[in-house]
C-alpha cells in the first residue's frame, strides 16, 4: 500500500459541468450552476477542493455554456489551491461520455487513471479510497455507488461480492439492488477507446459494455450523498452536509444566542437581535438578517436581506434579494437574484425569477415570471 499517495499526484480529473442547469432555475438564470454557492462555497469548489486533497494536480472542466464567466471566476479561486484548471469547450452538448473523447489528448498523456465527476454531486468525497480500491482490483474502471431508499426511481447497479459489476438495470420494479451510480468514477485511459466524439451517454453506451467485459467495479460510498441539481435536493443536501460538518469539522459551524442546530454564517453577515436561526441554515457573505426574524432549513445567498419578523422555512433566497417585514415564505420557495418581496406577504412554494418585485401573496406553488 505504500506509495499510493505519491502516484495519485499524476492523476487528472474531468468534471462534467455541462448544460444550462435548468433544474436549478431561477438561480441558474443569474449564475452558472457550478458557481451557485452550496454551504457558502460554489458547488464546483467543494469537488475541486476534495480532488486537490486527494492529490489531483490537473482539473479539466467540460463546459458547454457560459464558459467565460466560469473561467474568470474559477481560475482565480483555483490558483490558490495549486492546481491547474483546463477548460474543454463543447460546441454542442456531448452528453456524459462525449466530453471524455473531446478531452482525449489531455487524458491520454499518461497511463495513470483519471477521475470523472458529475458536477451536481455533494458527499464526503472518497477520492483517496477510490484510487486505492481501483489499483487493487486492476480493472479498467471503478464506479462509486451509493445506497438509496427507493431504488425503483433510479437505475441500479448489480455487482458480486468482490465488487465486480454484473449489470445495470433501469428503474427496477422488483427489488434487485439498492445501489445506484453516484456520479463519480475512476477510469484508465484505455476506456477512451470505447468512446466516440459524439453525443454519448457513459451510463448507457459505455459502462454496460465494460461490465460485460468484466472490466468495471463498484465501490460503496460511506456517508451521505446528494444530487443537488434542483432546489428541493439542494436544501436536503445542505442539511446532510451540515450534519456531516458537525461530525467532522464542528468548528466551522456558527454558534451564538438564538442559533439552533447546525448553522453556518459568513463572518461578514449581520444577525439582529431576537432572531432564531436554524436548524440547517446557511447565511452567506454580506447578508443582513434583521431583528426578530426566524429562519429554518434555508440558504440565504450573498448580499440578501431578511427584514424584521420574517419567517422562512425551506427557502433559497437569491443574491441581493430582500424579504420584507412579517413575510412568511415556505415550501421550497426560491427567490432569484435581486428579488424584492414586499412586507407582510405570504409566499408558498414560489419560484421567483430575477429582478422581480412581488407585491401580492403567492398562496399556492407557482412560478413568478
Amino acid at each position, binding site marked *: 500500500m505504500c506509495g499510493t499517495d505519491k502516484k495519485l499526484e499524476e492523476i487528472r480529473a474531468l468534471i462534467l459541468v455541462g448544460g444550462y442547469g435548468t433544474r436549478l432555475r431561477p438561480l441558474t438564470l443569474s449564475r452558472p450552476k457550478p458557481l451557485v454557492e452550496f454551504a457558502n462555497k460554489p458547488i464546483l469548489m467543494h469537488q475541486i477542493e476534495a480532488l486537490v486533497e486527494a492529490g489531483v494536480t490537473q482539473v479539466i472542466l467540460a463546459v458547454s455554456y457560459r464558459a467565460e464567466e466560469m473561467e474568470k471566476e474559477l481560475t482565480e479561486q483555483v490558483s490558490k489551491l495549486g492546481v491547474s484548471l483546463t477548460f474543454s469547450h463543447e460546441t454542442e452538448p456531448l452528453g456524459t461520455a462525449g466530453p471524455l473523447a473531446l478531452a482525449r489528448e489531455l487524458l491520454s498523456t499518461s497511463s495513470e487513471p483519471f477521475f470523472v465527476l458529475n458536477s451536481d454531486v455533494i458527499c464526503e468525497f472518497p477520492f483517496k479510497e477510490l484510487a486505492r480500491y481501483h489499483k487493487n482490483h486492476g480493472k479498467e474502471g471503478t464506479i462509486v455507488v451509493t445506497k438509496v431508499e427507493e431504488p425503483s426511481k433510479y437505475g441500479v447497479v448489480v455487482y458480486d461480492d468482490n465488487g465486480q459489476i454484473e449489470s445495470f438495470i433501469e428503474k427496477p420494479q422488483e427489488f434487485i439492488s439498492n445501489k445506484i451510480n453516484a456520479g463519480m468514477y475512476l477510469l484508465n485511459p484505455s476506456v477512451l477507446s470505447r468512446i466516440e466524439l459524439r453525443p454519448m451517454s457513459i451510463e448507457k453506451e459505455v459502462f454496460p459494455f465494460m461490465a460485460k467485459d468484466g472490466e468495471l467495479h463498484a465501490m460503496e460510498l460511506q456517508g451521505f450523498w446528494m444530487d443537488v441539481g434542483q432546489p428541493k435536493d439542494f436544501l436536503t443536501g445542505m442539511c446532510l452536509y451540515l450534519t456531516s460538518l458537525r461530525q467532522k469539522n464542528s468548528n466551522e459551524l456558527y454558534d451564538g444566542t438564538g442559533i439552533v442546530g447546525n448553522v453556518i454564517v459568513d463572518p461578514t453577515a449581520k444577525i439582529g437581535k431576537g432572531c*432564531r436561526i436554524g436548524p440547517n441554515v446557511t447565511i452567506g457573505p454580506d447578508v443582513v438578517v434583521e431583528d*426578530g426574524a426566524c429562519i429554518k432549513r434555508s440558504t440565504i445567498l450573498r448580499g440578501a436581506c431578511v427584514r424584521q*419578523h420574517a*419567517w422562512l422555512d425551506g427557502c433559497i433566497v437569491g443574491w441581493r434579494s430582500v424579504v420584507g417585514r412579517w413575510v412568511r415564505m*415556505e415550501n421550497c420557495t426560491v427567490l432569484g437574484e435581486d428579488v424584492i418581496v414586499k412586507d407582510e406577504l405570504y409566499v408558498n412554494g414560489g419560484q421567483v425569477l430575477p429582478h422581480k418585485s412581488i407585491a401580492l401573496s403567492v*398562496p399556492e406553488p407557482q412560478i413568478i415570471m
Partner: protein
Amino acid sequence: MLKAVILIGGPQKGTRFRPLSLDIPKPLFPIAGLPLIQHHIAACTKLGECKEILIIGSYTTTQMTQFVNDMQKLYRVIIRYLQEFTPLGTGGGLYHFRDQIRAGNPSAFFLLNGDVCADFPLREMYEFHEEKPNAIVTIMGTEATRQQSVHYGCMVRNGSNAVTHYVEKPNSYVSTLINCGVYVCSLNVFQVMAEAFQKKQDGFYSGNGQGTPHPGYMSWEQDVLAPLAGTNKLYSMQVSSWWSQVKTAGSAIYANRHCLTLHCTRDDVCQIIPDVYIHPSATVDSTAVIGPNVSIGTGVTIKAGVRIKESIILENATVNEHSLIMYSVVGREASVGEWSRVEGTPSDPDPNKPFAKMDNRPLFNTDGRLNPSITILGAGVVVPAETILLNSIVLPHKHLARSFKHEIIL
C-alpha cells in the same frame, strides 16, 4: 319626548355571523371597541329628548342584563330589554310591546334594526319627519348599486319624498334607493299595525292555522311598510353618509373600519397606522405595529414585533412575538403563537363601484368550497407557533396543532 326601539332578533338568527355569535350575542359583538348596538344607543342619547330606549329580541334576559345595566349607567337614560318568547317577526314583536312604547305618550319613536352600522342622522330624520304633516313612518334610505339593490327593501319616491312603491327583496330591479333599517315612527303607526294584525288573524283562522307560523307573526317590511306606500304617509329621507349591514362575520371587519373613522381613539403605545382603537386595559409592546382598522379589546396582550391590520382582537386574547394578523377576528382568550400568521381575505364592497354595499356571500361557493373570507378564531382557540392559518374559521376552544388553509375547524 322621544323614545327609541332597537330590534335585535334572537340566537336563532344571525347564524351567518358564526362562530363569532357562538360566544357572544351578535348585537353585543364589539365594533370599533363598542358592542354593535351601543353605537345605536350612543346615537339615540345624543338627542336629549330621547328618554327611553327599548331593546326587543329573543335572547334570554341573562345574556342581556349586564349590558343593559352598563348602558344605563353610562348614558343615564332608561334602557329596558323586552324579551320576545315566541318569534313574531320584525313587526310582531314591535306590535306586541306597543303599550310599553306608547307609555308616556312620546311624540315619536325611532326604530333601529340592530344589525346595521351607520352614522345615524337621527336629528335630521326627526326634523324631516316633523315637516311632513301626514307622515307615519320615515325611512332612512341610501343609494345601492342596481345589482345589489334587490337584496334590500327597495323604494320609489315622488317629488315630495313620499314613498310611492315599496318592495322587500324584489326578484327584479325596482330602484337603487334602499331601506337602511332606520326609521322615525309616529304613534299612530300602531293603528296601521292593528289593521295589518287583524288581516293576519283573519288569514290565520280561515286557513286552519296552515301556512303562517303564529297568529301574531307580522313582518314590519311586508305587512306594514309595503301597504303604507302610495298613501302619502310613508316617507324616505335619503342620506349619503356611511351605512352597512352587519350580517356575516366578514362585514364586521368592514363595519369596524368605518366606525373607527367615526369614533377613533388614538393611542401612542406603539407604532399606530390610523384608525385604531386600543382599550386602555390592553398591554401593547412598543415594537408592535398596529393598524389600519384594528380594534383591540379589554385585557388583550400584544407582544414584541407583532403586526396587526384590518382585524378585531377580542378581550383577553394574547398575540405572541413576531406574529402577523390581518383580515381576521381573534376571539376572547384566544392565543396566537410566535411567528404565526393568521390571515383572511377581505370581503369589502367593490371599491370601484359607487354605492356598492357588502356582498354577504354564503359560506360555500357553488363548487362546495369555502368562499375566501376573513379568518375567525373562536374563543379560547390556541394557534401554535410558526403556523399559518389562512381563510379559515376555527370554532371555540380548539387547540390547533398545525397550519390550516381554507378550512372550517370544528
